[in-house]
């Protein structure tokens, strides 16, 4: 979230699309109700289903699953053609005036630089700005140049007319226009819209671009960086934000730093590439501090072994040949390339697509280690559960270890919520039996391995023998010690660069924030964006002062938010270029003549006067927000509608190019090609979702939730039910090219047939919560049906949009 849960109450319009907060995030959704009550806010919901969020909305419009870019592209066109944009904001704070390379082009569904054989854009050199002799980007403040971003944007989205949108999305034209009117009502400086989305936007082969399109709508309206606005991802797990921040991904290091690729052999070049110089005069480009964050991380990991001479152990970091995301890893496992796998609190057999492929892959492992509080399906993938998991146990030669871990009530530590708040919690009870916290298990594994390498030697033991391990009880590092480590500390007395007589922090003291980090090895910090969470003054994450002095829901003294306890990101954009709040009722930070200050911690250089012209998006080398994504997105600089990989209409009405029906940059493994179905065989568009009574695959193990929603079901509309002769309560089989599930049919008015490209498209709703283990009635794993393809940028599986058939059984 750019903003916070309680900030939603400051909105005038709330758009929920690609999520269903009322059921999946009920206690956060209450802030939408607050906005309606206190602020007369209008709630608009766009969803394939009439959800409980829709049930309390001021306006609901249906949409075909997987067509959100077409819908939002249509909104962009509406805002531009009806002049419903915040002019001064977009001109000053976005790339509207930037000129784009003359070679950049878009034709019949494809951008310049496409390689059809590789199904990828391997030449993105034209996806750039024009540069002047001074090296800076060339701009046209009049925005008349046909190569400026504004003109290119306008041209690109002029194709998304209301009738085109309606034809693709199945949303009746008048309903689409009504939604546009609600959204456009916030184009002035005095009204604000927030967007709330979740996995309904991420789990598509073009999910990242759906989210970008939403962000572009918000930028046009001037709704980023302001109270009651923002792009608000409603994240799924209690600490999914924390694990992302801490970089537990194939290509990341903590704090959104990135691992080197195998072509990056030179340390200096590795840093320089990640510390871009400003692209326009007087811009901050905060990532120029990259080396300070990186060296401080290496000091936290390798202590004294990390020196300037060995480039802070640069060679010890593994170098990427390609991203080893989960889909790639299961593909490799399927092909026999992995021997071992660990699942720590993760149930991939249920969470990832195409269960039968996953079953085959897991059976090829030599060893599998499960660390979990609960008995997961993955841990028993080798056990025959009849039709629900029909495997030949004796032939599966995988050794499986299952290690019991603590749950939330039995451990202390911090969890980072969707709003970036690090909140500390305390242990309240002992775990059952011999269960142990993950910190202890990881510590013990490291110490056992270190002992083996000390005793026996082995391949490249250096990092294992030198990993800094200062914990008081080496086998069980405490949460307190680890939190202090990722906050960071001074390794020597830190002298104030402005005044050499002054010591900022003495050696060994906790740091106050990332501004104190240095690239010379004199500071250690395990996650630079968390610097400030545990200072010399103590644990800031444990703060419990819920005072809200400004009445705006920011509660600055409750817990601690990264970065720098800032509650609303890009908040400099809440003031106009002269430093005055756009809206005096919504003032957040402003220029007082000497410095920036206000209700929130300014997301800006605190003493940079407005006349200097520094832009509010200080992490970008441009200093402004981008409509034109340059070469950073796999499928092109502007989001374009592509059909889901399995499309119910078989064509992309936006082009007649067979290479651009679905995402032309989506990675599809050769072996999976026969596993995609067509609408001839599987005519219905399916989507998966959560129920309010259940959480993923956990709560089927929880008695009360198993009682509340005991048995697996699927939802279909009355039209489809009538066509197929299915009555409410009948047992049905839902099949895709990859397998089938059997469940009770719930015939409902909540899902209706849509008119798409001249044909009727029925949608099938599939709740995900069942499996072959648990207190609830045993059921089929819903992801049996989903396709093995991911978003072209994130490789998040396309679980929200695929084709099925349905038959009464």
């Amino acid at each position, binding site marked *: 979230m750019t903003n916070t849960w309680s900030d939603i109450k400051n909105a005038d319009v709330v758009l929920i699309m690609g999520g269903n907060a009322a059921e999946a995030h009920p206690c956060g959704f209450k802030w939408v109700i607050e906005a309606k009550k206190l602020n007369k806010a209008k709630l608009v919901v766009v969803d394939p289903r009439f959800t409980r969020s829709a049930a309390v909305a001021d306006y609901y419009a249906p949409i075909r699953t997987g067509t959100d870019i077409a819908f939002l592209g249509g909104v962009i066109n509406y805002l531009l053609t009806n002049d419903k944009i915040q002019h001064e904001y977009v001109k000053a704070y976005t790339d509207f005036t930037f000129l784009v390379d003359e070679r950049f082009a878009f034709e019949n569904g494809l951008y310049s630089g496409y390689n059809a054989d590789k199904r990828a854009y391997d030449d993105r050199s034209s996806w750039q700005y024009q540069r002047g002799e001074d090296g800076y980007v060339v701009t046209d403040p009049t925005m008349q140049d046909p190569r400026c971003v504004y003109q290119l944007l306008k041209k690109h989205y002029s194709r998304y007319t209301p009738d085109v949108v309606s034809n693709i999305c199945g949303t009746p034209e008048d309903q689409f226009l009504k939604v546009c009117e609600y959204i456009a009502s916030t184009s002035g400086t005095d009204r604000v819209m927030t967007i709330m989305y979740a996995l309904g936007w991420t789990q598509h082969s073009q999910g990242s671009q759906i989210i970008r399109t939403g962000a572009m709508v918000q930028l046009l309206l001037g709704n980023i960086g302001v109270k009651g606005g923002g792009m608000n991802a409603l994240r799924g797990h*209690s600490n999914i934000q924390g694990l992302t921040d801490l970089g537990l991904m194939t290509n990341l290091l903590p704090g959104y730093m990135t691992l080197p690729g195998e072509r990056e052999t030179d340390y200096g070049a590795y840093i320089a590439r990640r510390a871009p110089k400003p692209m326009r005069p007087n811009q901050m480009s905060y990532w120029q501090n990259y080396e300070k964050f990186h060296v401080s991380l290496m000091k936290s990991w390798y202590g004294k072994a990390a020196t300037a001479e060995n480039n802070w152990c640069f060679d010890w970091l593994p170098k990427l040949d390609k991203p080893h995301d989960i889909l790639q890893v299961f593909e490799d496992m399927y092909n026999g390339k992995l021997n071992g796998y660990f699942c720590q609190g993760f149930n991939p057999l249920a969470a990832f697509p195409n269960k039968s492929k996953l079953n085959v892959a897991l059976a090829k492992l030599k060893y599998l280690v499960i660390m979990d509080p609960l008995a997961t399906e993955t841990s028993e993938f080798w056990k025959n559960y009849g039709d629900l998991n029909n495997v030949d146990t004796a032939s599966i030669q995988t050794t499986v270890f299952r290690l019991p871990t603590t749950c939330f009530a039995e451990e202390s530590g911090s969890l980072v919520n969707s709003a970036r708040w690090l909140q500390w919690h305390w242990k309240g009870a002992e775990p059952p039996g011999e269960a142990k916290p993950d910190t202890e298990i990881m510590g013990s594994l490291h110490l056992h391995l270190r002992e083996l390498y000390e005793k026996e030697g082995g391949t490249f033991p250096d990092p294992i023998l030198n990993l800094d391990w200062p914990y008081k009880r080496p086998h069980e590092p405490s949460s307190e010690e680890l939190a202090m480590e990722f906050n960071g500390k001074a390794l020597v007395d830190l002298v104030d660069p402005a005044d050499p007589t002054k010591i900022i922090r003495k050696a060994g003291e906790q740091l106050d924030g990332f501004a104190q980090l240095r690239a010379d090895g004199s500071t250690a910090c395990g996650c630079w964006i968390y610097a400030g969470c545990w200072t010399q003054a103590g644990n800031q994450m444990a703060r419990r002062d*819920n005072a809200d002095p400004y009445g705006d829901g920011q509660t600055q003294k409750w817990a601690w938010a990264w970065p720098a306890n800032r509650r609303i990101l890009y908040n400099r954009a809440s003031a106009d270029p002269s430093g005055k709040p756009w809206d005096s009722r919504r003032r957040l930070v402003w220029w007082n003549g000497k410095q920036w200050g206000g209700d929130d911690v300014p997301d800006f250089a605190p003493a940079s006067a407005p006349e200097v012209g520094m832009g509010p998006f200080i992490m970008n080398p441009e200093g402004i927000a981008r409509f034109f994504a340059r070469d950073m997105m796999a499928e092109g600089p502007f989001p374009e509608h592509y059909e889901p990989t399995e499309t119910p209409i078989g064509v992309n009405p936006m082009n007649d190019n067979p290479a651009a029906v679905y995402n032309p940059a989506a990675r599809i493994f050769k072996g999976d090609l026969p596993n995609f179905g067509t609408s001839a065989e599987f005519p219905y568009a399916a989507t998966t979702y959560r129920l309010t009574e259940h959480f993923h695959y956990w709560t089927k193990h929880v008695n009360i939730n198993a009682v509340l929603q005991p048995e697996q079901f699927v939802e279909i509309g009355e039209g489809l039910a009538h066509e197929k002769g299915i009555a409410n309560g009948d047992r049905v089989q839902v099949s895709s090219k990859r397998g089938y599930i059997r469940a009770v049919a719930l015939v409902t008015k909540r899902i209706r047939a849509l008119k798409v490209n001249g044909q009727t498209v029925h949608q099938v709703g599939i709740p995900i919560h069942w499996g072959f283990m*648990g207190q609830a009635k045993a059921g089929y794993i819903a992801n049996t049906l989903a396709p093995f393809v991911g978003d072209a940028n994130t490789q998040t599986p396309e679980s929200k949009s695929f084709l099925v058939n349905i038959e009464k059984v």
Partner: protein
Amino acid sequence: MNVSRRGFFKVCAAGMSGSSLVAMGFAPTAALAEVRQFKLAHTTETRNTCPYCSVSCGLLVYSVGDGAKNTKAKVIHIEGDPDHPVNRGTLCPKGAGLLDFISSPARLKYPEVREAGTNEWKRISWDEAYARITRLMKDDRDANFIEKNADGVTVNRWLSTGFLAASASPSEAGYITHKVVRNLGMLAFDNQARV
């Protein structure tokens, strides 16, 4: 006059003023008049956070067991934390059932192993689990670790073992997991943020 609590209410119900009854000295004995003991009165209250979605509602966890030797703290009640600025004391149908999550029959209690080709779990000790797992890890790493790629570039990666991390575990667990896993050279490393 020694009136039982039930009797006291009967007297009141008969129309007499309770307060005047007390004033006249007809109060029941103190012990009998006391309402039923509040069951949370002797519990320990601990602040926690709901482990499900990322609204991250504040919780109050009530446990019995005072920390003395031979007692084991056990959670008996969970409710929303009214001081929490986001959930303000409320919980959803998932959070309201958390007590049953802690005591779920599916909770794992002991390290176990399923040997290759067999159809059952076998309980093992932590020592055996660590010893066997790290043996498998080291053998695989030593055999398959790639120090240099085909072009002779130092890459120091280990691709034949992978790790999925838990996005419901605390950041401190996530941090130490990253430190240990990346240090071994693993790249097949992800968490639920990928889903």
